[in-house]
């Protein structure tokens, strides 16, 4: 626990470095960096009601990020959270749309099950391709994101299309009030409860079960656990499916909660921000809880900047990109590869 918090602190130091780089970029672009950071801080945390907005974004991001953590820890680079999130949202919308009129006590649980199952299925096929035939999961899950995005366009423009829609935005019919789990604000006992339950369960899974320890070992050296008698295919599939299920759950929450309907191309960066959270948190669940609030704040600020401060929302994209850059540099697999390469050439 202490170790993982230390790792988060170290990662946050890199975030500070990234912010410094962003400051330089802002200055060159003709904005005042201090003013920009002040506005971001205001929009994220300091203004009245800002915390509410930040937490609204933090909850689903945290849920998806825990899934990413499970998958990464077991050694599979499942970068398909975005697609799994979409499929979860789509499955939820199908259920809520076709069961419209049935009692909420039946429909809402079914929506959750559908979202979780949809996300899980969207992670299952790259998982099977990986463990059965060795297909690179980075490629397959990334492709899965594109396919899911296109399916989203297809269903919101087709079977799920809201006939009364304006035509400018393709979207499903609004979810009936009886099935909503939160208002537009996006913070409700159901959503906070779901995030807390997921957080606790995943923390226990990672830190207090045989699976968690073995998956951690497998993620760092799968050969070793194979020689101990573990079946990597099972561990791997479990990691994939769990990761997808949690991203799907976040999709359900967005549709039944703050969004209230399924919009074509909504939240296109959700899955990637979740990956960033997982990496900044050093693949620790407790760390991800803190880091999610930070990134939730940034997401919230990106809405605040153009509307109330008259500053470009792209500033938040720049910050996210810079953080991604520095976190990747910290891992520096390329550096190790380069030196090994040089050694080999020199020896020859």
């Amino acid at each position: 626990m202490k170790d993982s918090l230390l790792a988060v602190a170290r990662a946050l130091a890199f975030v500070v470095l990234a912010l410094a780089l962003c400051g330089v970029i802002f200055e060159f672009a003709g904005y005042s960096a201090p003013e920009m950071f002040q506005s971001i801080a205001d929009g994220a945390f300091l203004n009245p009601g800002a915390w509410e907005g930040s937490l609204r974004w933090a909850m689903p991001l945290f849920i998806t990020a825990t899934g990413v953590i499970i998958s990464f820890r077991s050694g599979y680079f499942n970068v398909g959270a975005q697609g799994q999130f979409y499929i979860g949202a789509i499955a939820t919308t199908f259920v809520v749309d076709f069961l419209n009129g049935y009692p909420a006590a039946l429909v809402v649980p079914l929506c959750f099950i559908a979202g979780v199952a949809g996300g899980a299925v969207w992670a299952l096929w790259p998982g099977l391709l990986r463990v059965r035939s060795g297909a690179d999961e980075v490629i397959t899950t990334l492709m899965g994101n594109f396919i899911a995005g296109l399916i989203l366009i297809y269903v919101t423009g087709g079977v799920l299309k809201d006939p009364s829609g304006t035509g400018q935005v393709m979207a499903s019919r609004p979810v009936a009030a009886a099935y909503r789990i939160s208002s537009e604000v996006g913070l409700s006992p159901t959503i906070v409860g779901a995030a807390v339950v997921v957080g606790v369960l995943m923390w226990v899974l990672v830190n207090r079960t045989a699976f968690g320890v073995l998956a951690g070992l497998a993620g760092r050296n799968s050969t070793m656990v194979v020689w101990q008698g573990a079946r990597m295919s099972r561990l791997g599939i479990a990691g994939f499916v769990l990761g997808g299920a949690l991203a799907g759950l976040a999709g359900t929450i967005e549709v039944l909660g703050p969004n209230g309907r399924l919009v074509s191309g909504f939240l296109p960066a959700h899955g990637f921000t979740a990956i960033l959270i997982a990496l900044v948190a050093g693949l620790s669940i407790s760390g991800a809880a803190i880091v999610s609030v930070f990134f939730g704040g940034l997401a919230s600020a990106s809405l605040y900047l153009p509307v109330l401060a008259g500053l470009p929302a792209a500033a938040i994209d720049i910050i996210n990109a810079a953080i991604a850059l520095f976190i990747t540099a910290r891992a520096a697999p390329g550096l190790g590869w380069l030196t090994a390469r040089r050694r080999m050439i020199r020896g020859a």
Partner: protein
Amino acid sequence: MTKAMLAEAPTAFALQCRDISVQYGEVAALVGVSLAFAPKLIHAVVGQNGAGKTTFARVAAGIVKPVSGTLAIGGREIPTGNVGQARAAGVELVHQSFALPPSFTVAESMEFGAERGRPVFSRRGLEKRWQKHLENLGVRAGLRDRIRDLPVEAQQGVEIARALVADAKVLILDEPTAVLSPSGIEKLFERLKGLKASGVTVILILHKIREVLGVADTVSVLRGGRLVEGPIAVGATNARRLSASIIGVQAEKEIAADEAALVGATAGDALAGAAPAAAINAAPVLAMQRVVTRADSEGPGLEEVSLRIGRGEIVGVAGVEGNGQRTLVRVLANLVEARSGQILLEGKDVTKTPLSERRARGLRIIPFERNSEGLSLSSALWENWSARQLLLGPALRLINPSWYRNACDASLKEWDVRYHTTMQAAGSLSGGNAQKLILAREIDADASLIIAAQPTRGLDVGATAFVWRALRDARARGCAVLIISSDLDELFDICDRIVVMLSGRIVAEFRPPYRLGEVGAAMTGAH
């Protein structure tokens, strides 16, 4: 070789270093070593693992920069830690683990080992260019063969040929005999004597006294990074004296019984192991019956391998590396499929049983690759230690990590592992301690069959003696032990029985007293 001959040597030494010290972090690898080698002789540098031999070779070749000291080649001082300068002065090093790119052809390896390769070349041009060179050295390898397809001995030949493409005056070989069969070693030594006759100074890093006495003109002994003695003419010393100075007086008592085997000073005969007490008649712990596997990237397939190991018996597998030993271990671990035949563990057919279940029945494996198959280096000690037990129950059961940490702590103390905390990464342990961590995990009260693959490779004398003691203790408790090693001294010392593998078959079986000549002949199929 006599002292008089040494005195006649010209004053310009082929390679001379003065007061060399090398520091790796907090570890002093070499401390004030001064050595001078006369030209046109074969010099041996000996010592245990960790004595600083390889570091010395790397300093001499300009790969490692010492913190202090000077290096002179042929009487001319050159800057230390500069490979280019060292090579220009005529020093070439053949690494212990071969360094040629596996995907290169032999001709390509030669071309790009040359100091100034041409910017444009044709395949045929390359082959024409290097044909003669290889023929002169008596290396039998096709110029078009890829390095990875060559047998070990040919690979080493190509490595040496590569080192000699430039006008090498000093050739350093780091543990060249480790991968060779006894007859391959003889051929290597013939080749080195030929080089000596043609005016090359050879420096051999070795750890076996028998080999030193067989080929070298002078010998120098390193211990704990310091020069103990040398270079002295081999005629002026003997096996007893050398082994005493390699091991040192203090360690001697602890390992007295195994001393000869540890320094490779056995004449090759005798050494009867403790005879197993009528164990073989009882039902065997392991029985392999005509097991056949497919060949794959890691080695040849097994061809009708049958092997029985009884309770309280240590059986050794000898053989030149790459003759199916790895496949043998992998088929026992169910990591490669047996196409036909049967594997019985404690009388139960486990041919189709997954590894987890075989382990639950008492199978334990100390794998070949300590750092990849044995341990997850970036994971904590307690996680590495607990892995076997964690796999025994359902994956989702709740565990208490602090219980495992305490149990790991107690177990590692019992096995005399030197560490700071069970939370530290396994990669921070030294080779000997890392191996003890694996032993602590694999040798427990429930073990019935222990497979130890190269269990002492890279360990110093103390750690090696420790591993042997652990395996003998396991035998005393009634375990069956299968040990795979390329070190015949090791096998002769602790095995009750030795089988020899060649091209995926078991071709011979020996019982004590072992004779080096017979076992060596079986290893190369020359009997």
